[in-house]
């Protein structure tokens, strides 16, 4: 999903914090159903809950700690262009975000009667107050609120007009919950009488709606956000071509890359840029600093506490909760203000920083508070997978043996099903010092190196992904080019006339999906067993 600020940005005013009780029983019912947002399936044992309910005094790391920041990220594949983030003084001069209560967005025709009018009567309410958090469970619960909190209410991705337009849903195949909620955006009331559509919450990308309408928070999201962005580009009257080009450039340009294909794209006509966005299938995401030419699949956050590198390229190190806070702060969205060898994506003329708080680009004129980041990280750490319906059987046991025999375990090492290492991509020579500094599994698996060499997040590596939870997610490979695990093991994918089942790029009809060519020569029986096993982990 693209993350950007559109020219149609609305004013976001500071408001009264007074809240009035809900007076209408009818509205009370309607609200109670989905105020809490979308219930995710997050099983947790009674013992865990008890442990989380004792008094808790958090030790909150300093996010923009200069020493920690200096080693928080790997250098880029083009080392001289490694991001230099804003100084701590600048960062802490940014105003803190205010967490206003937000409300579900219903698809047209599914909204409870009187809901919209009821929203307009609501007083703004600040829902995050660290002084009221007494237990670890309190912090996690508060973190969930922040996970769903939009950091943009100016229409950075989709607007109120979009989410109330039936064509937006049908044209983009927007998944809905059983209750008709579109869980990727939220209504925000920051001023009584004004209902704004909020974008760019963590949940916008990291929420998955299964076919049965069940919501998995934190899982590989499936909001067709890039398709939606393409749709907006084609339909929004207030999104002229220069603005489209500016946004695409701010999101993806990597001018330090020779003949940067992203920069070439952002100079093309509006329709071509829209087509490039539309080429991304659900489950992939043209996040800032990546590319819609080499998109990443959306990572599954469930289990992220055990990952030692974050991002597909392993850009960010994850040495503790402080690093997770840094990662969130950078991605929401301070990296727009980083200096990439003289290029600042949303800097003044891409050259200099705007005064703190004066940037007009979503996510760059304010910041999360330290307590907000801590709560967010605690929530992300707390995410639990849904109960796996696939049980162990003789077939899956055989599949496990295939998994071992074929050497899958070397990279996808149990119990995490990743060795938490980085594999270099074709075309990247591992510097000697990296072997000492980082966890390098020094051989390429031959997947498309585009993301890792041609983007602002490209390190020259791909992180070995965990296979945990593959039964509930997809598409697969770092670029989401294969929709199912069966496709991953399909030898036909190496053929030039193969039609990729996931991402293939705008205008591409057939394309070989090379790399990670393991298990392609298995017998049918072994493959079936391996697939069955993978569905159990």
């Amino acid at each position, binding site marked *: 999903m693209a993350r950007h600020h559109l020219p149609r940005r609305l004013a976001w005013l500071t408001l009264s914090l007074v809240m009035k009780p809900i007076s209408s029983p009818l509205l009370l019912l309607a609200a109670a159903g989905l105020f809490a947002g979308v219930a995710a399936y997050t099983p947790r044992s009674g013992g865990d809950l008890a442990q989380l309910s004792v008094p808790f005094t958090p030790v909150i790391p300093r996010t923009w700690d200069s020493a920690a920041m200096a080693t928080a990220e790997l250098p880029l594949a083009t080392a001289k262009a490694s991001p230099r983030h804003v100084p701590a003084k600048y960062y802490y001069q940014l105003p803190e975000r205010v967490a206003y209560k937000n409300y579900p967005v219903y698809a047209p025709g599914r909204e409870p009667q009187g809901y919209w009018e009821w929203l307009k009567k609501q007083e703004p309410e600040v829902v995050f107050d660290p002084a009221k958090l007494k237990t670890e469970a309190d912090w996690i619960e508060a973190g969930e609120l922040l996970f769903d909190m939009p950091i943009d209410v100016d229409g950075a991705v989709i607007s109120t007009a979009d989410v109330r337009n039936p064509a937006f849903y049908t044209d983009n195949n927007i998944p809905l919950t059983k209750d008709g909620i579109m869980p990727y955006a939220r209504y925000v009331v920051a001023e009584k009488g004004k209902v704004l559509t909020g974008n760019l919450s963590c949940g916008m990308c990291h929420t998955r709606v299964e076919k049965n309408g069940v919501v998995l928070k934190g899982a590989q999201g499936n909001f067709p956000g890039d398709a939606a962005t393409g749709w907006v580009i084609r339909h929004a009257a207030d999104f002229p071509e220069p603005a489209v080009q500016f946004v695409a450039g701010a999101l993806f340009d990597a001018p330090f890359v020779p003949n940067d294909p992203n920069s070439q794209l952002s100079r093309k006509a509006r329709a071509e840029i829209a087509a490039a966005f539309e080429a991304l299938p659900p489950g992939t995401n043209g996040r800032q600093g990546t590319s819609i030419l080499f998109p990443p699949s959306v990572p599954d956050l469930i289990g992220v506490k055990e990952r030692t590198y974050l991002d597909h390229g392993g850009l960010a190190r994850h040495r503790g909760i402080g690093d997770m806070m840094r990662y969130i702060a950078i991605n929401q969205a301070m990296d727009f203000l980083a200096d990439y060898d003289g290029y600042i994506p949303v800097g003044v003329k891409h050259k200099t920083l705007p005064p703190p708080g004066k940037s007009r680009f979503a996510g760059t004129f304010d910041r999360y508070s330290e307590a907000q980041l801590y709560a967010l990280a605690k929530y992300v750490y707390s995410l639990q997978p849904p109960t796996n319906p696939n049980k162990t059987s003789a077939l899956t046991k055989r599949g496990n*043996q295939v998994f*071992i*025999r*074929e*050497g899958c*375990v*070397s990279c996808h*090492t*149990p119990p995490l099903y990743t*060795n938490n290492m980085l594999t270099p991509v074709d075309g990247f020579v*591992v510097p000697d010092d990296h*072997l000492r500094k980082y966890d*390098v*599994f*020094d*051989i390429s*698996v031959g997947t498309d190196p585009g993301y890792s060499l041609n983007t602002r997040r490209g390190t020259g590596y791909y992180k070995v992904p965990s296979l945990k939870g593959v039964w509930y997610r997809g598409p697969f490979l770092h670029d989401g080019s294969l929709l199912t695990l069966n496709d991953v093991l399909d030898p036909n994918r190496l053929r030039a006339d193969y039609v990729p089942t996931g991402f293939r790029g705008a205008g591409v009809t057939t394309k070989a999906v090379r790399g990670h060519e*393991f298990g392609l020569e298995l017998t049918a029986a072994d493959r079936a067993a391996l697939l069955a096993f993978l569905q159990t982990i």
Partner: protein
Amino acid sequence: MKILLAIWLLLGLGAGLLPAGPAVEEAEIRFQIVNAGLTVEGTLTGLEADVQFDPAHPELATIRAAVPVSSIRTGIGFRDQHLQKPDYFDAEKHPAILLQSTAIRPTGRNQYEGQFRLTIKGIQHDVTMPFTVSATNELRGQLRLRRLDFNLGRPSSILADDVAVSIRVRLAKGS
């Protein structure tokens, strides 16, 4: 008896740098390592050895052997390639595995125990290898080593440290 001996080795490497001596009729170097509970077997080929061995005077024997890292095979080509890399054998810098005897003593009829200096990835360790020499000029030996002693890979929850190595070399008659 003059023997062309050979070595052996680990998890999956391989490449033949050195020509095998003409007196070696057959050489087999196998290794085993447990990975995720499953025993992985591998081989090395292309060994070269220079052996001075008189059964009547084993204390005077000298054995020098080398085998190319590039010859390592484990049944999975990708793994074999990876084993050549710096995090494993670093074949570019250390193309051969070397074995040099420092002392050999008899332990029974046709049975001996050799002290060897083993060099892998430029790291030397002394190892002990019992071996036999048959009337058909066949030498068989076994030893165990720890891969982490030679900086081969990293500590792992699934890949064992211990590696079992077996060597069988048959020499041409009269050699």
